[in-house]
């Protein structure tokens, strides 16, 4: 049908951020009146969410969000209002983000913070961790999909482990040679595990 094609074109234009006020009004009217159009509109949004997040779409519907933007709006004009276009684009983006978060709920894909014993000192570059005896350090969770970031994280973990081993291996030597200059000559030795002497 010519009418359906017109509505689909309006939907595509809105999804691309190029829709006019007339396109939006046309979409709202169509999704209210025609369940197939509502389903198509949902699939369209789901596809966009998939392209952005790589996650399979669920049920996302931004028509209410779009409607809310238009509540209290003045009668439609032929030319799109930049403000309304911006609001619609923001509404769509927000809906996609919220929908994406809903889809991610319950999936343990990424745990961004390393769980390490002791205090973690935020510093630029390499991530220092507080050494603590008697507990094995827990590694940083990484994405299930291999990537360059994951490779870098693996390298960082190896170097963190190397630094930990060298702390234990060379700590006593460092304490022996510098303790006399430190505020208390015993504390530098206390920082070193006793079995590494």
């Amino acid at each position, binding site marked *: 049908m010519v009418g359906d094609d017109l509505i689909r074109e309006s939907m595509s234009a809105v999804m691309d951020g190029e829709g006019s006020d007339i396109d939006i009004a046309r979409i709202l009217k169509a999704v209210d009146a025609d369940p197939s159009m509502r389903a198509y509109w949902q699939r369209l949004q789901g596809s966009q969410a998939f392209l952005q997040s790589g996650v399979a779409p669920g049920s996302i519907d931004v028509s209410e969000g779009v409607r809310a933007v238009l509540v209290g709006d003045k009668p439609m004009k032929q030319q799109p209002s930049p403000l309304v276009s911006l609001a619609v684009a923001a509404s769509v983006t927000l809906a996609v983000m919220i929908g994406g978060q809903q889809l991610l709920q319950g999936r343990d894909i990424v745990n961004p913070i390393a769980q390490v014993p*002791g*205090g973690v000192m935020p510093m630029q570059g390499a991530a220092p961790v*507080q050494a603590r005896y008697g507990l094995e350090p827990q590694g940083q969770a990484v994405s299930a999909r291999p990537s360059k970031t994951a490779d870098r994280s693996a390298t960082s973990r190896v170097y963190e482990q190397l630094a*930990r081993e060298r702390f234990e291996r060379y700590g006593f030597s460092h304490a022996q040679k*510098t303790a*006399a200059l430190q505020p208390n000559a015993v*504390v530098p030795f206390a920082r070193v595990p006793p079995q590494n002497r």
Partner: protein
Amino acid sequence: MAQIASFIVLMMTLAPVSFAQSGRCGLAPELEESVNKLLQSGSHYNYSGTLLVEYGSDREFIAVNARQGQGSNSLTRLSRRAGAPMETVIAERLEAATACSLARLYAFSAETSQAVAGRATWRLSIRPRDTLRLGYLMDVDVQSGLPLRVVSATPDGQVLERFEFAQFQLGGHSQAAQLPTATLNPTSTLKGTGTPRFQFAGLPPGFTLIGQGDSPVAHAVVSDGLASVSVFIEPQPKALAAGEGVVLRGSTLAYTRGTPNSYLITVMGEVPITTARLFADAVRVTTTGS
């Protein structure tokens, strides 16, 4: 701990005003004398006591027995396990820095303080003049000049470590043996049989070479009189991409860097990570010994 952290931040950001700095090196004579007493106290007095040490969220009590005259100290880790053995440790004797030599690197200020372990103390704030060193807040025993409570922090005020005597007994003056001190060339090449040789292209401001050795691997020790750093170099143990890792234990940091030419540089010391990186940057591997 939060109060101490707030004080440290304040200490790091405000210029010390407690003493008029009018002496020969910018320090008031009485402050210079007090700081010198502190710097020399470690080798002058025997003492014993119980020390509480906090590293981040970790803490432990340590029984301490310092016998400076014999050149050895002992410590017993009371929180580790029941019946923990006494550990005897020997620190190499080094010539103490002077207040004036440190004054160009650190700003000192003093004020009154509360008692620590039942003893009268005064508070010394040591604020680094650049971002290459740690800052310290010390409650110093009036009688001996020994620091009874010390908080160390990064230049931006992050507390790294805190230790405090819960119980303290001052012994007598120690009769320290006179040990020779070597004069070293800061740019001399460090050698080792079967280990890499290296030298420093330069050292961060204020640091000088105070020791070097080949065991367990080629290493050098540098200090600014208060902060100390050991630099170790060894062949990289496994095929790895260049990278870096850092581990902290209280004030001591171990920074390990793998170089593209397959060496592993480890910088260990009581310095911020910025300084550790500068030391690693300065290492020049010359060749590998046979």
